[in-house]
């Protein structure tokens, strides 16, 4: 499989591609002319946009003929997942788009259905988080902020998305890394990045945590000050230290990936991994990543499955520290 892929990659010549593709498509994934995307969230959100961008990229790269997107929203994916696991069982051309948020939501909601019941196909994109303070804030560095937190956690209020979500998890990890207690974080939950942003711009809270995309424009315009980002390394063109550089051993990506339903054939699994891998290498997908500012964190197949299990353990641990699991 790998050989064939690298062969295709090196065959940049479009003519050769066209000559090769028809026969190739019939053999390897005859079943995947049509992809059925399952999005366990309402239209418009991150998972939905991922699904629609995938559809667009796969079509433009001539990998599939068509696709269909089904949205079953609610409770961070906890409403949709049981339907995907039960009613979509065995569909060899189905892909569910979900990610870290679902892992957390299933734990806090004590859902009887687990992500591990699905077949992990690939991790696709990641978004790092950022810790910001209002312009007027006395805190210049993450160290300042965490020192104030250690002195009196009640005096440092954190704005972010819903309790138990990615933002809250990062705040808890930071508190722990700074030698404090995750439970002591004075976390002010908002229904999303927008309302939290309003609280920060109005200087109502001490600091804010959210995805970089939610705050980036305000940081660029000088309305908010970014103290640190949760990425593993410095980002090009961005003069903000990582949390590790700022002195705390924390790294976090809000990742999104795709999953197949349980009960599919091995051949289907292979074909799906192949399809997603070829999409990831295609120019249209790379373009989508650029316009939407998504970080490419591609990881496919069994490696992704292992990562998923480690991630569930990690998130469960921090949610316990926060008193939510």
């Amino acid at each position, binding site marked *: 499989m790998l050989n064939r892929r690298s062969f295709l990659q090196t065959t940049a010549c479009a003519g050769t591609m066209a000559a090769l593709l028809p026969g190739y498509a019939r053999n390897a994934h005859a079943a995947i002319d049509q992809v059925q995307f399952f999005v366990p969230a309402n239209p418009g959100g991150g998972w939905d*946009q991922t699904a629609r961008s995938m559809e667009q990229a796969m079509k433009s790269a001539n990998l599939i003929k068509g696709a269909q997107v089904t949205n079953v929203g609610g409770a961070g994916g*906890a409403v949709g997942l049981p339907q995907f696991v039960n009613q979509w069982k065995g569909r060899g051309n189905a892909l569910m788009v979900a990610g870290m948020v679902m892992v957390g939501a299933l734990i806090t909601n004590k859902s009887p259905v687990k992500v591990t019941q699905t077949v992990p196909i690939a991790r696709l994109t990641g978004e790092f988080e950022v810790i910001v303070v209002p312009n007027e804030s006395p805190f210049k560095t993450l160290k300042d902020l965490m020192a104030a937190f250690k002195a009196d956690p009640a005096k440092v209020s954190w704005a972010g998305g819903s309790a138990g979500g990615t933002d809250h998890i990062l705040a808890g990890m930071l508190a722990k890394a700074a030698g404090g207690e995750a439970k002591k974080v004075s976390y002010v939950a908002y229904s999303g990045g927008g309302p939290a942003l309003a609280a920060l711009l109005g200087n*109502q809270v001490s600091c804010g945590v959210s995805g970089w995309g939610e705050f980036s424009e305000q940081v660029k315009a000088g309305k908010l000050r970014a103290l640190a980002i949760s990425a593993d390394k410095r980002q090009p063109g961005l003069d903000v230290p990582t949390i590790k550089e700022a002195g705390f051993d924390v790294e976090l990506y809000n990742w999104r990936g795709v999953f197949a339903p349980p009960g599919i054939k091995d051949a289907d699994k292979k074909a799906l991994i192949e399809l997603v891998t070829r999409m990831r290498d295609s120019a249209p997908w790379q373009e989508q990543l650029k*316009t*939407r500012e998504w970080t490419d964190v591609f990881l496919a197949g069994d490696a992704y499955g292992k990562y998923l299990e480690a991630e569930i353990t990690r998130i469960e641990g921090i949610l316990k520290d926060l008193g939510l699991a």
Partner: protein
Amino acid sequence: METLDLLANGFAVALQPMNLLWALVGVTLGTAIGVLPGLGPALTIALLLPITFSVPPTAAFILFAGIYYGAMYGGSTTSILLNTPGESATIVTALEGNKMAKKGRAASALATAAIGSFVAGTIGTLGLTFVAPPLVEFALKFGPADYFSLMVVAFVAVSAVLGSSTLRGLTALSFGILLGLVGIDLQTGQARFTFGLPELLDGINVIVVAVGLFAVGETLYLAARPKTGASVIKLQGRAWMTKEDWQRSWKPWLRGSFLGFPFGALPAGGAEVPTFVSYFLEKKLSKKPEEFGHGAIEGVAGPEAANNASAAGVLVPMLALGLPTSATAAIMLSAFQSYGINPGPLLLQNQPELVWGLIASLYVGNVMLLVLNLPLAGLWAKILTIPAPWLYSGILVFATIGTYGISQSWIDLVLLYLIGGVGYLMRRFDFPTAPAVIGMILGPFAEQEFRRAMTISAGDMTTFVTRPLSLTLLIIAVLLLVVPLLLRLRTRKAR
């Protein structure tokens, strides 16, 4: 007058034939989805997001803005005619509007709603054009403590719909607050009152409750009294507003507009609260308060203006700062992102053509909506000449389809009919239904803001009286409660 130049450029963009066509498609589609209870502008725009792959940004946003404004117009139509609010912001319109319709004055109610929406939409858009930046500065000063005090004012305003028995009214209000608490608590991530049903984790949709209590409840109530079933509503007078209607409508239009616009601009203001406050205000200011509850035209004109003006207000933080403060604004922002445009404080500088084209198209869309809706008022009103049994079975079908459209979940349908049953009992035993719906919106809102304020102040209750904004709002709330009582005492003494 730099703004005027920019606006003129905006009109040059909005008046291009293709963009006019997009605006027309948008307002027509918006009116249609506004009529259906389940489909709102946020969901419709989200479903249309894939067109951003193939249409230029200006056209897409003109389409989206048209849908947004159109939905505000359309929502009032079903509120008035069928007592079935199409949008949560038009729930209050049903209170007086449907009473007017039952008296055969549907056309007047629809006309005052349409003209009021036009007036308010235009005032709101003017506000968006000229005062957006300072207004945003002010709106950001509102913190959780201030929002909580604002909700206290709103709760006082609820007194206008409590009905003749305060105890019954407060019971209905509490029932609504209880319904509003169902689902995951935002501040702790824990589920409340969900009985282990994953479908309830995100709470109960307010439209399900409003349609259940108003439309289904009333249908069951009528069905239980066969005698009234055969009558047909006679349309009274001309299908147009009388001179008296005009006189009684124009002030509420203006008051509603000036109330709704700043509310919409508040990051957590929303479109529902100003409609309650407007209703309260009009009832207090009316020369004929006894007509309220029996079809007072002021009770349609004011809230309708308020919800349309707030729709323009919501665009203020979005265009001035890139702050998505409503579901629809959030979806529109994600559309910006699929064009690689980052909405933020620099949006106006970086994309003047897009922003001003959008604003200009709002003026255009407003005119289109008026032209589209006014002639239809008389036509729509004829729906009520359908004999009641057919009309009400039609309402049930319509309410059911609309509710299923919200999330394609059968649980919503079960809820609709359960709540409809409760609505029947409430009507049968003389409980007002409006406080339940309002409680459902205000209760959780007030609760979340109260807890946010407490987290920020580390549990110090004095935060509500030490913040100037919050204190001012609390004083207003007290005055609203006490002054009418004092006035009543004085008139009693004078007698």
